[in-house]
């Protein structure tokens, strides 16, 4: 059983919601990311989204753009992202890791080679931002054959039938983009997000994660009251900017994430 399914099954039993931090691999440095992955788990992460840096991150706002540029300047490559996952798996056999990125670095490695290397490294799911379902059928099939989940986005603008496509091709969870904009934008309308989720549930049995624009514990708890998971990316990366070393970075993410974890758990029992 895929770690993502196991994690959501366990959380459901416990009546808890998943906290999913997103970090760009290699930001602010490769060493920091290596130290950060276990630190995220210590701080309460249930699943980690690890960003594959790309030179042209069309769907990302300034924070993740900067993080990607910085990571690439440090010599980050897809092969090294997989090395980071492999290292993480030596000490953590349970926390799911989802790679999130753009199609071109994956295609440059070769889809088949990538899927095999990702499986072997201990990756559990792949979210390719610029592979919408209609272009992703062969890639999704390849991932599923290897026991990995293809994860898809749905947006406020998506027609209801898009959820059927995602339910047919995808696995793991559905990533619901909480706003019409790029990552890290500041105009999240909680009420409209919450209004969309019941409709999605009618069309897919997959857990629903919400991301893009969740910046604080309060919003996380409000979203978590209805969704199955909240994703926090840009705001988390902002806390890393200017960290002097890996220890400092770990301390910062732990002190940022712990209150969110707490509020998310309290929010649900309240």
């Amino acid at each position, binding site marked *: 059983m895929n770690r993502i399914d196991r994690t959501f099954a366990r959380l459901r039993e416990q009546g808890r919601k998943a906290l999913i931090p997103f970090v760009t691999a290699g930001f602010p440095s490769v060493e920091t990311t290596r130290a950060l992955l276990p630190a995220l788990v210590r701080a309460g992460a249930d699943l980690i989204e690890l960003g594959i840096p790309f030179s042209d991150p*069309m*769907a990302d706002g300034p924070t993740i753009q900067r993080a990607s540029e910085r990571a690439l300047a440090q010599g980050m490559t897809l*092969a090294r992202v997989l090395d980071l996952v492999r290292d993480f798996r030596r000490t953590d056999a349970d926390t799911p890791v989802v790679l999130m990125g753009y199609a*071109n670095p994956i*295609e440059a490695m070769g889809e088949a080679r990538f899927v095999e290397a990702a499986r072997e490294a201990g990756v559990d799911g792949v979210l390719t931002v610029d*592979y919408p379902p*209609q272009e992703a059928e062969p890639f999704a099939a390849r991932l599923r054959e290897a026991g990995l989940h293809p994860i*898809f986005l*749905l947006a406020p603008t998506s027609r209801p039938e*898009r959820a059927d496509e995602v339910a047919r091709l995808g696995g793991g969870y559905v990533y619901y983009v909480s706003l019409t904009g790029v990552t890290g934008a500041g105009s999240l309308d909680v009420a409209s997000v919450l209004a969309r989720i019941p409709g999605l549930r009618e069309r897919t049995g997959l857990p629903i994660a919400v991301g893009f624009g969740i910046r604080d514990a309060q919003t996380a708890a409000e979203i978590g009251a209805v969704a199955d998971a909240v994703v926090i990316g840009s705001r988390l990366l902002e806390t890393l900017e200017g960290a002097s070393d890996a220890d400092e970075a770990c301390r910062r993410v732990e002190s940022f994430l712990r209150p969110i974890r707490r509020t998310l758990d309290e929010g649900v029992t309240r």
Partner: protein
Amino acid sequence: MDYHYPDARGHFGPYGGVYVAETLVPALEALAQAYEEAKRDASFRAEFEDELKHYVGRPSPIYHAKRWSETLGGAQIYLKREDLNHTGAHKINNCIGQALLARRMGKPRVIAETGAGQHGVATATVAARYGMRCIVYMGEEDVHRQAANVYRMKLLGAEVVPVSSGSRTLKDALNEAMRDWVTNVHDTFYILGTVAGPHPYPEMVRDFQSVIGKECLWQMPELIGRQPDYVIACVGGGSNAIGIFYPYLEHESVRLIGVEAAGEGVETGRHAATLVAGRPGVLHGNRTYLLQDEHGQIRETHSISAGLDYPGVGPEHALLKDLGRAEYVAVTDDEALAAFHALCRYEGIIPALESSHALAYAAKLAPSLPRETVLLVNLSGRGDKDMHTVAERSGIRW
């Protein structure tokens, strides 16, 4: 030639498609549907043609560059004078089409990306003409290289937003325009300037630009009693080239040659010759040839011409290359400059540096061919905007 591309999902064989984040998928579906309806609507077509005639000044003439041809001593060179269009380049053809579509879809705000500034100027122009708000994204690097066009856009009432991410050139301006579109999709129409991007842009921009080749199809027989032997056009994203190539695809005796920017030389790595030296991948919403490193990161490109300084290329060119229906070559900055000066001195025409690449290849080819051979070169834009670049290169202060 049995050629029916793209398919219903926007694929040109293995190229093209809709490789975008989900948020944009519905907007592109709505655009594709609106375009399908518009192109079947006789009144839309009539208005487009009327605007091209009275506002753009079409048809643009074809001119026999006799003196230059004689100097080169071989084939005869004919120029399709897109430089004589309103705003000085072919870009306006597409902008008129898309602005009419924006109006039809009820979108009051238009955005565009621009490299050399020609597409930005053309977009600002049509936005003024139709009373739309206009925002143009332009790489910081290009804002400096093309100061005159920046001022021109501002005069026309557009807001020019410098883009400081990535390599600060056209590709980054395109990223930023996409980000704007994803954020403001409810009231905004993205007027994309070339035959790249997600479906339906490559098809739609091709259709609007095809007026160039369609005119040539009747103008050449009027001039010389037959079609040309070669059609030559520069290729950055590839809109002027597709515009003149597409109506000629079925005329299989006509050789189609796309000329890319070899910059300082393809072997130096400082170039923008995507089809000559790239390999397929996914960028800006479509699958096509790209200049990329071994890890799939997009490479910085170089060309003296900002309009060719782009690491991708329209997916239809990728297909035409694979099919062998068009050939793609590259000429260097220096070769393009030499052709630029030659056209100034022999014909009294100042060509855009982009178009100078097509001219340079014609100049290479002509001497090896008999006098009866006819080369039709798409003179896609005029060179006023490039005065500064050329003067600087020649060590002239002005």
